[in-house]
């Protein structure tokens, strides 16, 4: 009975801190939203305001109205979805090998894959381009393949943990029934790893959606451009149209947000199945 007031105080304290933290977290985003509704003439107003004196939709109209915007949006969606699916497929196949199968040199091979996590993509752009040219893999296909490659290491690592934590009883039973590795992979491991796969989906989608450096060099036709390139084109040599840049970016944020909200229920659960616990 006497624990109650203490617990209430503790909870109140927690809520206050959380809300303060929330303010810190959301303030920049709020400022970006607000600025996207300001006309260019107010961009450097003094004092800066967190609520526009003059509201305008001009930035959104200009940004979205550029007839390519919808096209870039579609391109980014196509590339992101394909990259995500391909990454899920390939990294789950790799993770399965490392989690369940045995052969000489397995650990070494795994560490070689881990190298991919340590190297920044910007370092490899030129040789990757040379490979892409050699195989004639430009535009969207080039994007999809490279995005997948750059994500394999981390996602395989995560999924290996997930698969290792899948309880073995179903597998044991299937093995007794004479099931081969493909069946085990397809019918047992994958279905039980939904949350873990959600993590992979969110990670890869996010990466593909906002990647810029490789898209800049690998896309040869204007009609194939992805959103980040389109937004970069708002910045000309002589002027940054801040309002338009922010307006376009906020619109670009929506799909990722949607994907996250859809999968977030599984997200935390998914991470915990990757075995990053005790």
């Amino acid at each position, binding site marked *: 009975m006497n624990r109650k007031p203490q617990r209430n105080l503790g909870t109140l304290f927690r809520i206050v801190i959380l809300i303060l933290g929330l303010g810190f977290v959301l303030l920049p985003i709020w400022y970006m939203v607000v600025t996207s509704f300001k006309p260019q003439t107010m961009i450097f107003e003094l004092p800066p305001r967190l609520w526009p004196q003059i509201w305008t939709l001009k930035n959104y109209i200009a940004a979205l109205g550029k007839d*390519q915007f919808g096209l870039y949006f579609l391109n980014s969606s196509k590339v992101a979805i*394909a990259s995500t699916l391909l990454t899920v497929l390939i990294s789950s196949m790799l993770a399965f090998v490392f989690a369940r199968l045995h052969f000489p040199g397995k650990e070494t091979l795994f560490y070689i894959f881990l190298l991919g996590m340590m190297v920044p993509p910007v370092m490899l752009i030129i040789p990757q381009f040379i490979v892409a040219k050699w195989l004639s893999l*430009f535009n969207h296909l080039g994007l999809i393949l490279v995005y997948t490659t750059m994500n394999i290491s981390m996602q395989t690592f995560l999924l290996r943990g997930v698969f290792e934590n899948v309880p073995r009883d179903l597998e044991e039973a299937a093995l007794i029934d004479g099931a081969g590795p493909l069946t085990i992979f397809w*019918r047992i491991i994958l279905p039980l790893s939904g949350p873990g796969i959600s993590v992979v989906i969110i990670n890869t989608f996010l990466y593909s959606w906002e990647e810029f450096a490789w898209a*800049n060099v690998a896309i040869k036709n204007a009609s194939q451009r992805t959103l980040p390139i389109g937004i970069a084109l708002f910045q000309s040599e*002589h*002027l940054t149209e801040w309002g338009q840049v922010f307006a376009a970016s906020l619109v670009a944020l929506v799909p990722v947000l949607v994907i996250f909200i859809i999968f977030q229920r599984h997200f935390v659960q998914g991470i915990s199945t990757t075995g990053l616990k005790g």
Partner: protein
Amino acid sequence: MKTNRFVWMLVSLLTVSATLLAACAPAATPTSAPATEAPAIATEAPTEAPTETPEPVTIQYWHTHSDPETAQLDQVIAAFEAANPGIQVETSRYAYNDYKTALLTAISSGSVPDVARLDIAWVSEFADQDALVQLDGNLPDFDNIIKDTFPGPLSTNYWNGHYYGLPLDTNTQVLLWNKDIFEAAGISAPPATMEEFAAVACTINRSAAETRYGYAQGGTYFWAPAPIFYAMGGKVTDEEITTATGYVNGPESVAAFTMLKDLYDQSCMSPNLLGGGIATDAGHAEGTYAMIIDGPWMVDIYKNNYPDFEVNFAPIPTGPDGTTSSVVGGEDVVILEGTANQEAAMKWAAYLLTPEAQKMMAAVGQMPTLASLAGDPAMPPYFAVFQEQLKTAQARVPHPKWSDMDNAINNAYQRMLNGDQTPQEALDQAAEEINALLQ
């Protein structure tokens, strides 16, 4: 479980088909976007008898034009293609900040565009890397074409005894002054000499109630102080580009930078040039900066973003010897080594320098490099002050290591503004660093 399995199978089927579909799309499809050309793909057709019409050819042209400029470029392309059946021009537009990266990546993998529009400061650098085709002696009618171009812009194409590009468009910087602010401070005309300039900058600054600067520069990179530097007689190196000693740290150069430093110390010049302040274009339109020095693109920028602002141009104030000057900017058109369609590429490059093409691009603010078009009534009226200034404007050092030299001067400017060194000391150090680059 059954639905799960079905879902996964569907998913992997989709992935595989998406990848296959993307793979089956030809790697160099013609675009469907209105911004680019080439409705029909036409790579090398099998050779026919020499007396037949030439094989249809597609050339790639890369650029960093803005939206309105790109639209106009399409018109130029249409005219060119009409006059040259058998050649199609496909364009790729890049964002300015990422253009060099895209070019270098393409060059290092051997898959280059045929023609490209390059910043004039990059031509000698790319030529030094053997990335550009030598034009004198190769481009048909080269000598006639360059006869009509301004010497300043033309000189930016010259490296190591040969020409590696054609001057495509040029520009320079002039003084922009805010008439309303001037009149409020009791000044009726823009400053004509540097002395007047310094005085006006400080008068306006002190007479204002709110924060206001008489003058603002975009940064400390050389392009920003260059007009004042050149107008006051400053030089970076000697004519033959062998040494910087006595030039970048010579008396005129030091005087120019000393004037700027004094303006900065007295708060007549905005501190934004050190980084992270209000941009000059925005500040000028909003009245924070009474004067800036900038280029012809400001007309369109202000029209689109600050429609109520009336922009006023004036020549760069004259230096101690009574002459004005400024810095030459602009772009050259080059042909990349490794192009498979050199003949067609050269035709396109040459076409861009015809009076028709130059007049068309002039309508969107691209100043022609043809001397014969100076004063032509077809030119937008605001060109006049720039073209007048171009008569005395100077090009920056056409050397492959220019960006390092720029950096040396940039750092020197920073050091003197911060008070770490006097202008003379800072420029002495810059001279040493530049000399090392000229070895």
